[in-house]
């Protein structure tokens, strides 16, 4: 009963994630990252640092790459896309296909964040050069050294026809 009392004080928060609508009853200060992972079971978005320093928690909100570890659930406006919404193993997004073709990942933990950040970059800049790629991706850490292949995959994806996502990064 004490447990229930703790929860009843939370207002309902409605989140649109990968085009599904979810109602959650959590402390409005809970970072979106932990709502996605612990409440909704969407494990593709990763916890790396909790301080916006590593990019592993990156999601797209209305097409904008956002650090979900720093965004309170109660402050979310817009539609959220996680890596699960971009593509699936059976039907990967074109950028993911390029990632797979270039064999980018090693441990793979940082890659969902890398891919979503790269997705935003390519939506805004279909043919970025080295400096623009480095600037856009500087906030996404990788400890396995996949940076050269990430860069290569972004360039390879850039030279193709424009991506399946519309201009705002929404599907």
């Amino acid at each position, binding site marked *: 009963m004490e447990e229930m009392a703790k929860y009843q004080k939370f207002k309902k928060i409605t989140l649109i994630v990968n085009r599904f609508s979810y109602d959650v009853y959590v*402390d409005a200060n809970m970072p979106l990252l932990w709502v996605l992972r*612990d409440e909704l079971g969407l494990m593709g978005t990763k916890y790396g640092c*909790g301080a916006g*320093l590593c990019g592993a928690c990156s999601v797209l909100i209305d097409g904008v790459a956002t650090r979900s570890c720093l965004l309170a659930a109660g402050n979310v406006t817009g539609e959220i896309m996680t890596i699960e919404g971009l593509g699936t193993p059976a039907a990967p997004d074109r950028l993911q296909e390029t990632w797979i073709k270039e*064999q980018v*990942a090693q441990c793979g933990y940082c890659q969902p964040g890398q891919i979503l950040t790269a997705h935003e970059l390519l939506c805004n800049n279909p043919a970025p050069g080295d400096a623009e790629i480095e600037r856009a*991706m500087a906030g996404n*850490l990788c400890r*396995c050294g996949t940076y*050269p292949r990430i860069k290569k995959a972004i360039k390879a994806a850039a030279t193709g026809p424009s991506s399946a996502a519309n201009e705002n990064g929404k599907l």
Partner: protein
Amino acid sequence: MRRRKFIFTSVSAAGGIAIGGYYLAQKETVPNPLLDTLAHGELAITPYVFLDIDGVTIIAPRAEMGQGIHGTLALLVAEELDVPFSQIRVIHGPLSKVYANNVAYPKETTLMRMLRRGGKIVGWEKIKEMHPQLTGGQSSTKDGFVKMRKAGAAARMVLLKAAAQQYDVKVDALRTSQGKVVLPNDTAIPYTALLDHAKDIAPPTDPLLKPRREWQQLGRSQPRVDMISKCTGTAKFGIDVRLPEMLYATVKFNPHIGSKVKWFDDSKAKSMPGFVKAIAKLDGIIVIATNTWYAMQAAKAIDVEWESALYPTETAAHREVVSKAILNEQGGQVVNDGNVDAAFSKSEIIEGTYHVPYLAHAAMEPQNAVAMFKNGQLDIWAGHQQPGKAQHLGAKIAGIFPQAVKMHTLYMGGGFGRRLENDFISFAVHAAVEMRGKPVKVTWSRESDMTHDAYRPMASARFRAALGNATINALALDVASPSLFSSLRRRDIGIKNDVPERLDKFNTAGVGEQPYSIKNYRVTAHKVERLLPVGWFRGVGESQNVFFHDSAIDELAHVANADPFKFRLSHLEHDPSIGVLNAVAQLSNWESSLPKGHARGISYALSSGAATAQVIEVSKKKEGIKIEKVFAAIDVGIALDPRNIEAQVRSSVIFGLGAAMYGEITVSNGKVDQTNFHDYAVLRMNQIPPITVHIHESESKIFGAGESGVPTAAPALGNAIYALTGERLRELPFSKSVTFV
């Protein structure tokens, strides 16, 4: 695998036991662990090959932490089994002694086994149980090279015989191709159609292997088996485990690593959302809640008084202990050729002292584990490099036999040696015991991960040398760093804290075995008293000792006015070493002149027995030093998957460079200062130079590649900086002395 009763006859079990690779390794009969959970329609041929209606699953019982070992081990099986790599599924599989890493672990002698078992009966447990299923030290490919192929070949033989029986044909008239047995009339029977007959056939004990020239898949780059899942966010890491009724926890740590809690007050936490319980264990308070964030918030509201630090509270004190140790007269001599002292008495001595700091592993996935203690059984889910040890310690904490502990080993978001430890396992098991019946996921914050590591040791070294005719006549190296094994013993539960320091092979790995021809050569290791907890880091002892050794060689080359590349060559007779040095010299155009403001440095070392070399080109910019290009060559003996090898070389070079340039863990007031990526810098995309890799194949034996670029990275960079600026940097990280752009 479905958990239904195993109904096949035990013939395959008996035959399975006799399989070449692991039979030779196991004196005692270890049953095929796959048989425990075999269901109708499933078949296990050897502990490595599982078949069902869906196809072939290969057990690759090593930690997949990004190095691609699951693919490489599976490829070895797939080649001999004649099944296309794209058709197989790969899993880690269960924990079992059958999966021992015979390279990393010396085989237990009969005497030791008898002493261990006998001792246990009378309560004398001085001889520790071994936990040989281990991933580390670039050993998995070496360990699996023959045994995985034998498993594949044995399974193929069984399937051929099954087809022979099923179709009443002679085995000699059959062949295999693409996962199918081909009959004399060219009908192709998929392996999955042969399971019923195959179950009664004993696998051969020592099947013949294909000669290298017949390899169709080995030697070619393969798409990684985990690539699609890792590019779609569906790959499951330890931190991603999710179970019904699971609770979430974090650890509020004593900033003084390893020291206990004096008292704590969780009254404020009790009224916070999601809070369930807080318990003091080991050097922290496990805070259990209904969501990881609730646990982290509740942790902040807990008042604690901590026990003080068990080690010196300031970095300077640590540095003093380590740097004084190298001046000790006595030490453990690892090499003592010729007569160094006599040679020194006749010559001018060149000397230098080097220092390197503690390093954090800083894997992207913070430490975590899930555990559940229900009905007397303990289940542990974690990415772990030595699951047998985790099982053993989990059993101790839960007060049950190890047989009642089931390990589930998942992908790791980086290992680098950190997931050999058992602290993250212990906290999860304590939480599971406390919340009996419910699974608990314990996730460490990044801050906890960084401040409660088992660090790469702080180390110091002094070299003294004498030259004669542009040759090294005498070289003495004194190295000092804390012992990994002594530190480990203090951390294992049940071992009292008063473990005396001793020297272990990791203190001198990288200096004792470099194959230079030096007439008078002495390497001495010195003990260092208890400091921060230290553990296995990518490159281990080589990560500091090759920096010491190769920088010393480079200094001597310059004193002798010799070309550093030719100087190293002139002291080497080991062909693979000469091969990799020549390779990087060629790749980097070593002989050619560089534009003004550019310079090159070269380095060489054996890394886990394999010859490696690196050349780094740097340039002087207005704002600082820029790393222009890196060239690396490693000897793998035989290249099984060139693309993956290259990826590991690049990966380890970048890892080593980042450490050399910026890596440093310091201590103030007994607390580790660095808490997150803002004060423990790791390399970002814009800091990566082009890295060109040459794979050398000496074909003498097979070597791994996972750590290969780490040992030579720091010295190559230091040697390049010297060539550029004339300043010899003897302390890491280099950013203390120069600015990198």
